[in-house]
């Protein structure tokens, strides 16, 4: 078994709004192996996005520890976390989050600029990845001139062009029709496998589960069970190694 790319231990999250406390995550243990594609599913409000944010080092949990790529990220400073994300994590969002003023190619170039790549290399990689997502002829289009599926493909190119070790995606297909959604997920699956990138993807969409190596189900802040697509193995509330 490959080493863990993502390992969470007893992660808890309590939000405080005024005097109201909301316990959103109630002790999550989760391990995702390197190169694996893991889906995170569960009902609305179960804490999927919260967990993803914590695992990506965007949100600091109120309890527990997170280890990414062998490095403990709980306790890192805001700056150190930003550097870690910049180096190792690619993001795909439900609403694509492309920069509306930038063309498809420029969106990718900007992400590479954040990763401190040279202008020439950024241009080269942007062209290369647009080609890989089948949008070479849309390089100079602004997001508003692209369809939803095309936008998400640009976002995939943007997330992967920096060669991240981990890809974090929150409902990447939610804004797309189901056929486009399936194409997009297939693209993520193929490219991630090709680059050896670990994927953690939150989704509601049952039609894309066959893209996953494993699925973790979240319910009311707890992992209800995890299942492996290949073995149909079903576990209880706990770690699946």
């Amino acid at each position, binding site marked *: 078994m490959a080493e863990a790319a993502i390992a969470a231990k007893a992660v808890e999250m309590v939000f405080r709004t005024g005097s109201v406390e909301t316990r959103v995550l109630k002790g999550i243990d989760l391990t995702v192996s390197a190169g694996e594609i893991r889906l995170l599913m569960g009902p609305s409000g179960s804490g999927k996005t919260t967990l*993803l944010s914590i695992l990506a080092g*965007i949100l600091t949990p109120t309890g527990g520890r997170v280890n990414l790529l062998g490095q403990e990220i709980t306790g890192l400073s805001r700056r150190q976390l930003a550097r870690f*994300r*910049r180096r190792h994590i690619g993001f795909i969002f*439900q609403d694509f989050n492309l*920069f509306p003023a*930038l063309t498809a190619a420029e969106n990718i170039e900007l992400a590479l*600029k954040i990763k401190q790549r040279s202008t020439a290399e950024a241009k080269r990689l942007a062209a290369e990845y647009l080609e890989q997502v089948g949008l070479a002829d849309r390089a100079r289009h602004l997001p508003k001139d692209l369809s939803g599926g095309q936008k998400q493909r640009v976002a995939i190119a943007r997330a992967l062009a920096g060669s991240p070790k981990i890809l974090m995606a*929150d409902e990447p297909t939610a804004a797309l029709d189901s056929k486009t959604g399936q194409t997009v997920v297939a693209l993520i699956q193929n490219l991630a496998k090709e680059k050896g990138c670990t994927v953690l993807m939150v989704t509601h969409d049952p039609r894309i589960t066959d893209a996953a190596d494993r699925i973790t189900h979240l319910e009311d802040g707890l992992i209800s069970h995890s299942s492996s697509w290949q073995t149909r193995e079903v576990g209880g509330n706990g770690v699946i190694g």
Partner: protein
Amino acid sequence: MVSLARKNLLKDLPRFLVAQAGIMFAVSLVTIQTGILRGFTESTTLLIEDSATDIWVTSENFVNFELTEPIPYLELAQARQVEGVRRAEALLIGSGRWYSDEGKLTTLRIFGFDPEGQLFRPGEVSAASLEALNQPYTAIIDQSNQRAFGIDQVGDTARIRSLPVEVVSITEETQSLVSSKFVFASLKNANAYVNAGFSAELTCQLGDNGLNCQNAYERAPETGAEALPAPGPLEADVPITYILIRAEPGTDIPALKQRLEDTITGTRALTQAELVEETRAYWQERTGIGFILGLGAVVGILVGIVIVAQILYTSVSEHLKEFGTLKAMGAPDRMIYGVIVEQALWMAVIGYIPGISLCWGLSTWTLASQGIIILITPVSAAGVFGITVAMCLGSAFFAIQKVTRVDPGIVFKA
């Protein structure tokens, strides 16, 4: 490399243009206010700077260049005896009234100097023009006063008080904006003009039917210079205003100043730089003019800050999700602030260029049509650019505060 700042600014072009118009307005306000302030303060010392003088000796009651008490002419001779003095020349400043040929009245400030001397120069004038000043009842005027004096060209005549005057040359860039109209003449002529009072020209005769008086005003116009005696040399007790000193090369100037003050009692000696500085400071600080114009410039800067801050803040608020995305992707703070700072700098540059061009055009127009100097030098233009940049960067501060508080977590919120 792709610039998010520039693209975000240009994306909403109409609003960007409104912002630029606002910055242009601020730039213009600052440039015009400071330009008028500088134009007028510098105009008060043009003559001082035109002269090749090391030290100016005047009354100890000196206030500014044109406001000081007279000293007797004989002290010039005393000054020449002081060790370290190479040349000493007299400068007489007085006032009077100018009557144009059409009878139009203008107050004037007359400067009497030695046309053969080397220390005082009324702007750039030729040797021939200076030579011409040796003729009785001649003067040089500044181009900017031609209209007020009713002088179309060299050779035109008028009257100063009761005496005739012929303009022998026209100079430029000498006039102080806060003074009466300048006239330059030889010491002898100037002295005659200054003392040509009402009473001096009142000639009375005791005739058969009592005292019969006639004053200069009623003199027939054709009574020209020929009929008048030429002004004679200055008497020892005639009041003059300054003794201009050129020091021997290598003389210790502060020590020479001290010697002059000690030798000629009741006087104060100033270097050229001190005279310039005290005169400007007087106009800027002791009169309200500097304050008012300065206030105008400050208002311009404040208006600019408010406009730029408002635009940047709105821009950041509208692109909050983009900043969140940048943060989520791990962009360092430096880069995120860089986007805002770059926007601010673009706004500064793009607002500055039309603003300064507008002022430049305006200053050409006001000088030509109103005689008002709005001084825009390369240095002051650069200064205003500096202020514009600082203003935009200051405004960026508020926008940066907002971005600092952006939670990258918003990227996952729909």
